[in-house]
C-alpha cells in the first residue's frame, strides 16, 4: 500500500515537473507557417488585409499592443509607460530606451511622430485607411527623445485602444522623410525579427533580432511564412508537417479533416471573429447611385437562412450589424430584423425588392460582382449572393481576382458591386463605423458614398462618454447606413485556428490581426 502511495506521489511529482518544464519556453528553431494570401505591399499602416500583418508584423513594433491574455486590455510595446489626462485630451507616453531599427538607426519619439503624422495627414500619394481614426489628434509633441505627447482636438473615448492597433507599425522618421511611400517597398522596423527575404509567390522569411528591446525575446531563431493561396495546398502542408500553423482561420470541414488526420498532434482553437463580409455598391456608378436599387439588392439576401447553411461549409456564421454580434455595442436581433436586408420574412422582403427594382426601371439588372480569390469564405459568399440575386431576376457575373488586383480595382472604384470586408481588431464602434464615413473622410469606404448625416452621427457618438447614449447613436448610424444601403454586412465570421501542438506561446483572439509579431512564440520540439 505504502509502495503504491509512494509510486503515486512520485508519478504526480514527475508529471507536475514535466508540465512545468513543458511550459518553459525553449529557444531556437524555425517556425514555418502558412499565409493564405500574399500582401500587395509591406505597408501595415496603408493596408487592410491580414496578408500584410501576417507578413510584416514580426518585423515591426507598435506603441502599445493588446494583451491577449486579458483582451481587450492593452499593454506597452515601444511605450514603457503612459498616462492619460482625466479629460481624455492628453496622452503621454514614455518610450523604451536603447531601441534600434534593424538598419542600426536609434529609435526616438520623432519616429512615433512621423509614423502617426503619416497616418493622420498622409502626404500626396500615400494611402491611409486610418486617417479618420486619428483625425482627432491635434498635435504630437516630442519634448525629448523618449517622450511623446498626443494632444487631442476632441475626446475620443477609444483612443488608447487605437494606439494598440496592429496596423500602426512604427516606421523610421528618416525613411519616411526620404520617401513617404518607403514602407510600401522597404522593411525597417524595431520588431523581434529582421527581414531576410520575400520570394514572390513563395515565402517571406525573417531571422532573430539580436538587439530586440524586449530582453530574452524572441525565442525563435527564425520564421518562414509560406504563401499557400489554395486552401487545399495549405491543408496538405499542415497535414504533412511542411507548415506548423495557419493563423488566420479554416472552415469547419477543414478542421474536421485535419483533426481526423492528425488527432492529438493538432491544437484546435475557436472564437467568434471581429470580421465580416460586406456587400458594397459603387455609388458613383449607375444604377447603384439609386438607393432603390441598392436597397432592393440588400433586401433579396436571406441572411438568416444563409447563416444556417453557410456555417456548415464555411467560416461564415453570425448575422449582425456593423458591430460584432454578441459584443456589448451590438444591435439586438429584435432591432436588427427591422432594418432593410435583415428581415426574417424573406418572401415578403423579396417581393418588396422586386417592386423597388421595377420603380427604378432596373427589372433586367445585370452586373459584375467583384470578389477576392480566397476560397474561404469569399467563394461561398459570392456563390450565395449570386443565388440570392437571381431569385429577384438579377443576373450577376461572379468575378474573382487575387488580392492585389482586387484591392486595386476596389480602391480605384473600378467595380459595380463588390464583396468587401470589415477587418476589425476590437469591438469598438469608432473603429467599426469609420469604414462607412464619407469617402473624403475615410478611404476605407469603398462604396465611395458621401453622407454628411452619417458623418455627424459618427462625430456625435465619438464625443459621447455615456455608454447608453453612445449605443443609441451607434444604432441611429446603423439605421441610416442600412436605409441608404451603401454597404451592409453579409455575415460575420467564426474563427477556427489550427496549430501543431509543438507551436507554443501563440495566443488565440477574436481577431486574426492581433498577436502576429511572434515574439513570444516558441517550439516545443
Amino acid at each position: 500500500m505504502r509502495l503504491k502511495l509512494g509510486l503515486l506521489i512520485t508519478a504526480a511529482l514527475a508529471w507536475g515537473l514535466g508540465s512545468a518544464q513543458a511550459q518553459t519556453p525553449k529557444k531556437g528553431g524555425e517556425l514555418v507557417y502558412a499565409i493564405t494570401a500574399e500582401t500587395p505591399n509591406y505597408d501595415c499602416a496603408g493596408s487592410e488585409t491580414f496578408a500584410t500583418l501576417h507578413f510584416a508584423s514580426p518585423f515591426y513594433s507598435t506603441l502599445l499592443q493588446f494583451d491577449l491574455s486579458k483582451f481587450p486590455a492593452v499593454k506597452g510595446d515601444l511605450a514603457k509607460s503612459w498616462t492619460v489626462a482625466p479629460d481624455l485630451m492628453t496622452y503621454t507616453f514614455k518610450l523604451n530606451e536603447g531601441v534600434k531599427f534593424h538598419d542600426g538607426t536609434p529609435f526616438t519619439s520623432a519616429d512615433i511622430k512621423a509614423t502617426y503624422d503619416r497616418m493622420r495627414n498622409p502626404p500626396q500619394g500615400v494611402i491611409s485607411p486610418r486617417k479618420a481614426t486619428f483625425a482627432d489628434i491635434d498635435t504630437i509633441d516630442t519634448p525629448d527623445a523618449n517622450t511623446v505627447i498626443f494632444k487631442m482636438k476632441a475626446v475620443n473615448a477609444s483612443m488608447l485602444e487605437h494606439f494598440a492597433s496592429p496596423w500602426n507599425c512604427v516606421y523610421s522618421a528618416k525613411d519616411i522623410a526620404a520617401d513617404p511611400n518607403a514602407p510600401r517597398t522597404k522593411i525597417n522596423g524595431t520588431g523581434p525579427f529582421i527581414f531576410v527575404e520575400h520570394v514572390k509567390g513563395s515565402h517571406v522569411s525573417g531571422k532573430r533580432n539580436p538587439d530586440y528591446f524586449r530582453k530574452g525575446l524572441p525565442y525563435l531563431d527564425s520564421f518562414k511564412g509560406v504563401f499557400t493561396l489554395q486552401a487545399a495546398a495549405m491543408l496538405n502542408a499542415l497535414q504533412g508537417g511542411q507548415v506548423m500553423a495557419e493563423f488566420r482561420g479554416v472552415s469547419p470541414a477543414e478542421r474536421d479533416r485535419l483533426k481526423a488526420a492528425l488527432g492529438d498532434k493538432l491544437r484546435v482553437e475557436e472564437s467568434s471573429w471581429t470580421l465580416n463580409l460586406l456587400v458594397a455598391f459603387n455609388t458613383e456608378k449607375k444604377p447603384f447611385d439609386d438607393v432603390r436599387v441598392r436597397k432592393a439588392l440588400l433586401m433579396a439576401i436571406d441572411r438568416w437562412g444563409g447563416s444556417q447553411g453557410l456555417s456548415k461549409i464555411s467560416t461564415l456564421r453570425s448575422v449582425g450589424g456593423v458591430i460584432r454580434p454578441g459584443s456589448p455595442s451590438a444591435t439586438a436581433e429584435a432591432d436588427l430584423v427591422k432594418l432593410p436586408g435583415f428581415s426574417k420574412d424573406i418572401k415578403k422582403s423579396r417581393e418588396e425588392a422586386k417592386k423597388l427594382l421595377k420603380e427604378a426601371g432596373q427589372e433586367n439588372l445585370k452586373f459584375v460582382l467583384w470578389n477576392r480569390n480566397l476560397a474561404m469564405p469569399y467563394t461561398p459568399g459570392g456563390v450565395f449572393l449570386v443565388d440570392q440575386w437571381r431569385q429577384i431576376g438579377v443576373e450577376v457575373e461572379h468575378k474573382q481576382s487575387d488580392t492585389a488586383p482586387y484591392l486595386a480595382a476596389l480602391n480605384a472604384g473600378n467595380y459595380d458591386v463588390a464583396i468587401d470586408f470589415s477587418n476589425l481588431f476590437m469591438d469598438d464602434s469608432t473603429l467599426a463605423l469609420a469604414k462607412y464615413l464619407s469617402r473624403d473622410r475615410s478611404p476605407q469606404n469603398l462604396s465611395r458614398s458621401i453622407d454628411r448625416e452619417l458623418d455627424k452621427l459618427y462625430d456625435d457618438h465619438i464625443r459621447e462618454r455615456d455608454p447608453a447614449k453612445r449605443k443609441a447613436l451607434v444604432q441611429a448610424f446603423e439605421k441610416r447606413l442600412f436605409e441608404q444601403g451603401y454597404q451592409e454586412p453579409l455575415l460575420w465570421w467564426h474563427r477556427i485556428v489550427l496549430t501543431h501542438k509543438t507551436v507554443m506561446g501563440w495566443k488565440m483572439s477574436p481577431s486574426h490581426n492581433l498577436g502576429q509579431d511572434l515574439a513570444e512564440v516558441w517550439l516545443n520540439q
Partner: protein
Amino acid sequence: MTLVLPQPTTPGAFSAALGKVGEFTRQQPLGAVSFVIIFVMMFAGIFCELVAPYDPLTIDFAAILAPPSIDHWCGTDAYGRDIFSRLIYGSRTALVIGFTSSFVGSSLGATLGIASAYFGGRIDSWIQRFMDVLLAFPLIVLALVVVAALRSFVVGGVDMNLILAIAIPIIPRVARVVRAAALGVRVMPYVDAARAAGYSNSRIIFRHMAPNVVAPYLIMLTAFIAQAILAEASLSFLGLGVVEPKAAWGLMLSGNAADFYREAPWMILFPGAAISLAVFAFNLFGDALRDYLDPRFKV
C-alpha cells in the same frame, strides 16, 4: 481543286452521305460508339435548359451533400446544388470552350502550316522556329502562362481569354502536322498551274491547297477538342478557368469538393467520370476519323 467532303445538296448526295455514315459505322464501330457519346453530350449541352431537372445554380441548404437518390440522381454538392444538372450544364461549358479553342487553335495552326509550306525559305524557317518555341512548353503549362498573363474578358458568359489560352498551345501542334501534308500538296502540278495563272498567294493557299489538307485538319481538330476539354477542366481545377457558381466539370472537382469528398464521394466521382468519358470519346472519334479518312489505313 479536289474537294474531299461531298456536299449533300441533292437527294443523291444525301443517300451518298448516309452511305458514308454506314460505311464509317461498319469500318469503325468504336468510332461510331464514341460519336453517339459525343452526340448525347452535344444534345445535353445545347438543350440543357430542357434536359436538366434542376437549375444548376440554385442553392438548397436543406439538401447539402445529399447522396444519389431518385430526386438527385448524382447527389448534391456542398451548396445543395443538383450534381446531375450541373454535369449537364457543365457539358455546355466543356463543349463551348473545348470546341471553340480547338477550332481557333487548329484553324490558325493550319493556316500557318500551309503558309509555311507554301512560301518556304526564310518565312518557313521563321514560322517553324517560332513553333519550336511554343512546342517547348507542354500544352497545360503554356495555357497556364497565357491565362495568368491575360485578364478575363467575358463575352456571353464565356471567357474569351480562357479560349485563347487553350487555343495558343494547339497552334504549333496543328501547324507542324498540316505543314507536312501541305509540303506534298505544294509540289502538285495544279499549284504550279495556279501560280502560272497569276493567282494571288492567299487564293492559292485557301482555295487550292487548304481543301487538300482538310483530312489532317479535321483529325487534329477532333483530337484537340479532347485536349481542350481536359485543359479547361485542369485550369478550372487550378482556379484559373471558369469561376463559381458557373457549372464546369473541372471546377466541380475543386473548391468544396476537396473538403467534402470523403463524406460525399459523388461530388468528385461523377464530374471525374464525365471528363474521362468526354476525353475518351473525342480521342476515339479522332482516331477513327483518321483511320477512315487516311488512305494508307484503308489498305
